């Protein structure tokens, strides 16, 4: 094999791919969609919060109303109290008036605390329209705290002291493994999952592009010129590299955008995930990403080599897509227990290795040596597949109409 024709073909492939409308649209659209999916909920929460709420309370026990301190102390961004808590006399007349005022939206909500509430009778919360479950939980918790304080006081216990004694502590998780720097496991999990998902999406997409590019050479009949000057293996490598680097370019743009966002908003979830990824070792992730990319691209190119139309290729892509999907779901389930023997063994199997070894390495389960071994496996497999695909391609070029059966493909591999 010769490097120069590979480069010529890869460059043409790259330029053709990067210039397509879909590439430009996807490159712009995906960060926009991702940005919007983060920004819109944040915006909605912000737009939702500043309103002051008027809460009417009828307290038959006479003990709860004064203990609702936590609600009264909450402040809005502009310093006004978040809740205006109004006392309503606990008479049937006043209660029914208060309910009427909720309907008229004079009160945002009305809470009726029956005399038996201290002993477990339900407290009733009246609200207009669709209840906001988060707010109900919040207010309910405040009432519960007040009621518990009443009960504790009745038993002669000091509520302040009880709170102090039953305070829970935060639970920090740190994974330690074979001389690796201790990592905040949770952050590493999130980062690795983000990488796994990104890898799955781009492999599926650019794999299909590779198949398409091989099939298009046949349908456009350019292939006859190509294989009369370069070897089929050179052609395959050119296609795989060209399409692959187009995919990496797109990812590079996305990563750059993410980096920009995380610098601009250091407190955002994006920034935190990004820092966690950086913590896991960016070079290792990139190496697995790229090698996985080329391994699957060569498989997808193989699909293109035995098909004559894009429709046919769409069907035949399924086995490869399934293989990728299995790797993806193994990683998804493996993230709960990346130390399991199953995941450990499969992380050396070339077709699963890029995703699973990335996962194990990312969470500190595998050493650099493990990563190296599985990487060599991936690269050898890629080389074998690309060569085999080149041979199949050479003999499949002039085949039109019927699809090659498996036995025919094997026969060709032996003959070529």
């Amino acid at each position, binding site marked *: 094999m010769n490097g*120069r024709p590979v480069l010529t*073909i890869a460059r*043409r492939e790259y330029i053709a791919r990067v210039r397509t409308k879909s590439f430009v649209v996807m490159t712009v659209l995906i960060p926009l969609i991702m940005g919007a999916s983060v920004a819109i909920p944040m915006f909605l929460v912000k737009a939702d919060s500043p309103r002051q709420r008027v809460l009417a309370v009828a307290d038959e026990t006479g003990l709860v109303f004064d203990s609702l301190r936590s609600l009264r102390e909450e402040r809005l961004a502009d310093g006004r109290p978040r809740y205006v808590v109004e006392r309503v006399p606990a008479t049937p007349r006043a209660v029914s008036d208060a309910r009427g005022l909720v309907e008229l939206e004079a009160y945002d909500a009305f809470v009726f605390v029956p005399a038996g509430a201290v002993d477990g009778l339900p407290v009733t919360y009246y609200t207009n329209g669709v209840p906001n479950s988060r707010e109900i939980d919040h207010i309910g918790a405040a009432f519960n705290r007040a009621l518990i304080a009443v009960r504790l006081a009745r038993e002669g216990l000091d509520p302040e002291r009880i709170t102090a004694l039953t305070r829970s502590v935060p639970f920090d998780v740190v994974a330690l493994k074979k001389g690796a720097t201790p990592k905040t496991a949770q952050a590493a999990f999130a980062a690795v999952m983000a990488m796994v998902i990104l890898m799955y999406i781009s492999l599926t997409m650019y794999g299909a592009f590779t198949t398409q590019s091989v099939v298009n050479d046949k349908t*456009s009949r350019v292939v006859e*010129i*190509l294989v*009369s*000057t370069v070897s089929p293996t050179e052609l395959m490598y050119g296609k795989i590299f060209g399409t692959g680097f187009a995919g990496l370019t797109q990812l590079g743009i996305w990563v750059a955008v993410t980096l920009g966002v995380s610098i601009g908003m250091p407190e955002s979830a994006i920034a935190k995930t990004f820092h966690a990824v950086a913590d896991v070792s960016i070079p290792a992730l990139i190496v697995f990403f790229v090698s996985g990319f080329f391994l699957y691209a060569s498989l997808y190119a193989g699909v293109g080599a035995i098909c004559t139309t894009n429709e046919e290729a769409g069907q035949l892509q399924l086995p490869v897509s399934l293989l990728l999907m299995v790797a993806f779901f193994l990683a998804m389930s493996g993230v709960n227990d990346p130390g399991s023997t199953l995941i450990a063994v499969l992380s050396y199997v070339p077709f699963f290795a890029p995703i699973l070894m990335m996962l194990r390495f990312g969470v500190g389960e595998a050493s650099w040596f493990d990563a190296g071994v599985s990487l060599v496996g991936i690269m050898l497999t890629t080389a074998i597949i690309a060569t085999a695909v080149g041979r199949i391609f050479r003999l499949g070029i*002039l085949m039109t109409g019927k699809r090659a059966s498996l036995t025919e493909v094997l026969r060709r591999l032996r003959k070529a």
Partner: protein
Amino acid sequence: MNGLPLVLENVSKSFGSTRAVDDLSLALRTGSVCGLLGPNGSGKTTTIRMIMSILLPDSGEVRLWGAPAAGAVRKHVGYLPEERGLYATMTVFEHLVFLAELHDLSRREAKNAVEEWSERFTTNGESSPKSWWGRRVQELSKGQQQTVQLIGTLLHRPELVILDEPFSGLDPVHTSHLRTVIRHLKESGVAVLLSTHRMEQAERLCDDICLIHHGRAVLSGALREVKSAAASRFVELRMDRAPDFLKPDDLIAEVEMVSDGARIRLQQGADTQMVLARAIRRARVLKFEIVEPSLDDLFIEAVSR
């Protein structure tokens, strides 16, 4: 490079039980045009694909300048496939540069070559290919696409050019221009293998021919010799009555009605005077002429044998 540009030695190729090419031998000299002739499906394209190592022969050998055809020597061949194919969304210029680079030209050399060849391909009364450089291939007419592909075949100054049905789909202006290009190639010492079933074009261009049928060479050699060997087997005859009494038999192989009489092909070894004698017995002969066969005649004769 030494040795004959192209030699085929007893080359055979089968697809399943079909023998596409059967024991074919061929040699092509520098500065000559050889016509690879034959009806559709006779094995011309399969032969060419074996020369370009797209297919590998089952037996026999293909050599380019004495070297095995499958090697790097292929890059010195210019190949115009029968099935034309260009990337539809590339611009003409980019595409031509790409094709040149595939043949090991550097980017600079490639650009210069594209410039030079586009000048040469300016036909009378038509815009220069240079003016469509910026257009995408899919925006060109079919004839223009053919021209682009032909330029792409010649950019790297090949010393052997293989053209598979280059005339198909060309109008008379482009056809005549292509003939000029082929003659220029020949004059500059390039060996040209021309596969076609357009006999009138082959007749005007070829020094040698190789006529194949069912994968076998049925007639081959220098065009002039092939023709003179078949001379005195074709006569034109005009009489005062219809030549309906002339039927194929042991003397006459075929009778074709032409505007003012009949064109008769004789059986191998038959004497032209016997035909005249037979005609005189039944009618008054107004014209009797022994004619030189056309390549078309030879082709039909060879194929119907």
